[in-house]
């Protein structure tokens, strides 16, 4: 049961409401997106059925060498330059716990040496995540561009 907003192909907008607290968005009677009573946003978008969207809760793209600077970001208050190839991403709004997923990437120079690693190090916390930039187990290096995303 749900309150349904349906874009019907013959009758146009059709609204059906109940007291379940869930909202379904339909096209021609087929559910394409849902917001359930737990606040989960679910969508189809070619998946075949509605599934929960797990959002990117923070992201950052920054210059890791020279004058270290954030190029752009979302839900990030700052980065901390802790030394050569060592950075911390600080969240503007804390994560609900420290069990989020992280992905980092970077490159060493504009035209060459792509694929350098920016990997999380230390303990994940709700307020920040530490990264080290390096090539395999070699010593840390400063990267020209660093990118990190956090999914929860």
């Amino acid at each position, binding site marked *: 049961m749900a309150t349904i907003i349906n874009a019907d192909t013959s009758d146009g907008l059709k609204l059906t409401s109940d007291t379940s607290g869930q909202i379904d968005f339909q096209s021609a009677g087929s559910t394409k997106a849902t917001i359930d009573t737990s606040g989960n946003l679910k969508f189809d978008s070619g998946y075949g059925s509605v599934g929960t969207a797990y959002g990117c809760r923070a992201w950052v793209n920054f210059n890791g060498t020279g004058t270290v600077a954030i190029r752009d970001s979302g839900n990030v208050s700052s980065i901390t330059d*802790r*030394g050569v190839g060592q950075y911390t991403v600080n969240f503007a709004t804390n994560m609900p716990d420290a069990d989020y997923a992280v992905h980092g990437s970077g490159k060493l120079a504009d035209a060459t040496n792509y694929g350098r690693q920016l990997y999380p190090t230390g303990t994940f916390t709700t307020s920040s995540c530490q990264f080290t930039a390096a090539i395999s187990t070699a010593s840390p290096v400063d990267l020209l561009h660093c990118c990190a995303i956090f999914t929860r």
Partner: protein
Amino acid sequence: MRIIYETSDGGVAVIVPAPEYLLTHTMEELAAKDVPAGANYEIVEDSVVPSDRAFRGAWTWA
């Protein structure tokens, strides 16, 4: 602006603010949130932090 603080091993860390965050917060508020508790820190102009990182590991708090 940047925030520099003394790390536990005597080195220097540099906090680089996100421009978006500074639309709604001050540097002092950022320092209160992102500088480790008890660390000596200072809010400085960008130009105070060297862009030459050849000896980044040798930076010390003076």
